[in-house]
Every structure is written in C-alpha cells, then in structure tokens.
C-alpha cells in the first residue's frame, strides 16, 4: 500500500463515515418527527450520533484539522450565545411546533437551563481539546 492507496482509502472511509452518520441522523429524525416515537424508542441511535459528533469535532480540533486560533473573551461569549440561541430555537420548534406539546413558559425555562449548561460543557470540552492539540503541535515544533 503506497501513499496514493492510503489517500484513496482514507477518502473512501471518510465518505462512508459521512453517509453512515447522515443515515443515522435520517433514521433518528424519521422516527422522531414522522413516526412520532419518543426518545426512548431511538435512544441508542441518538446517543451514538451525539457522542460521535462531539468526539468528531474534538478529534478534528486535537489533530489540527480545524485551524485553532486564540479567541478573545468577547468572541467566546458571542459564540456561546449563538449556540444557546440555536439550541433554544431547535428545542422550541421540536416541542411546541413539531410535537405540539405546548410547553409552558416555566417548562421552556427549565429546558433553557439544560441548554445553558450543556452548551457551556461542550464549549469547555472543545476548548480543552483545542488547547491540548495546540500544545502537542508546539511540543513537536520545539523538538
């Protein structure tokens, strides 16, 4: 196996991974929004997709596939707000429009607290991996 074979193999693997991931997402959305199943009915798929997405982004950051830049505190806050807004809109659409659960303001506020916490945890996790990846590269450069 030479470098060309490896390049092709990696491209094919990446494509197949992408299609598998998209298919899992499709299955999840179909079960949730078309068949109206509860999360318990596709918990395993949802967990797999979530963990996969989180670790995919972490690995991309750690191995330097995504450019890592030092962000200003203001930009981190803006990014956090954008993520929270996206999560809130998705939650509102999911419960009050698609599932027609008509959650009260108090119930939505409860969900918002979960979104705030999860977003902070996720961003912290990704910032940690970015930092570790940057440190790894700096160490290699200094050797």
């Amino acid at each position, binding site marked *: 196996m*030479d*470098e*060309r*074979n490896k390049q092709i193999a990696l491209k094919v693997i990446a494509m197949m991974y992408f299609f598998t991931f998209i298919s899992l997402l499709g299955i999840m959305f179909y079960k949730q929004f078309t068949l109206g199943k509860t999360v318990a009915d596709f918990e395993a798929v949802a967990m797999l997709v979530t963990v996969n997405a989180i670790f995919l982004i972490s690995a991309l950051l750690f191995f330097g596939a995504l450019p890592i830049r030092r962000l200003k505190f203001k930009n981190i806050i803006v990014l956090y707000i954008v993520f929270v807004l996206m999560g809130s809109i998705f939650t509102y659409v999911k419960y009050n429009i698609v599932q027609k659960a008509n959650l009260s303001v108090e119930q939505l506020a409860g969900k918002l607290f979960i979104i705030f916490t999860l977003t902070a945890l996720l961003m912290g996790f990704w910032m940690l991996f970015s930092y570790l990846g940057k440190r790894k590269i700096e160490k290699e450069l200094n050797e």
Partner: protein
Amino acid sequence: MVNLKLKLARVEKGLSQQDLADLVGATRQTIGLIEKGRYNPSLNLCMKIAKALDRTLNDLFWDDEE
C-alpha cells in the same frame, strides 16, 4: 500535465514502471499515474524517485514552460 521528463529518465535508466515502483516503495499504478500527470506525489515520494533515478527534483518535476 504528462510528465515526460520522468518517463524519459526512467527509460534512460533502463527501468520499467514496476522496477521504479519497487525501488521507491510504491505501486506500478502510482508511477504510471505520476507519469501521466494524473497524480500529484508527496515531496517525500518525489525525492525517493529523484534519488532512484540519480536526478534532481528540478530535472524531473520542474515545469520549464511556466
């Protein structure tokens, strides 16, 4: 763009595509595709090829027309 320089250097050295491939640790198809200009080799592979053919990188891979 077809890499005639590489093909000429290989033939002058009396090597087949398979011989050159064995010398540089690549496959015959890869050497063929490089000669046809259908694959861009890494710098590492370019250097191995240049060494195997006793040529410089310029001799084999630099395009004089540009």
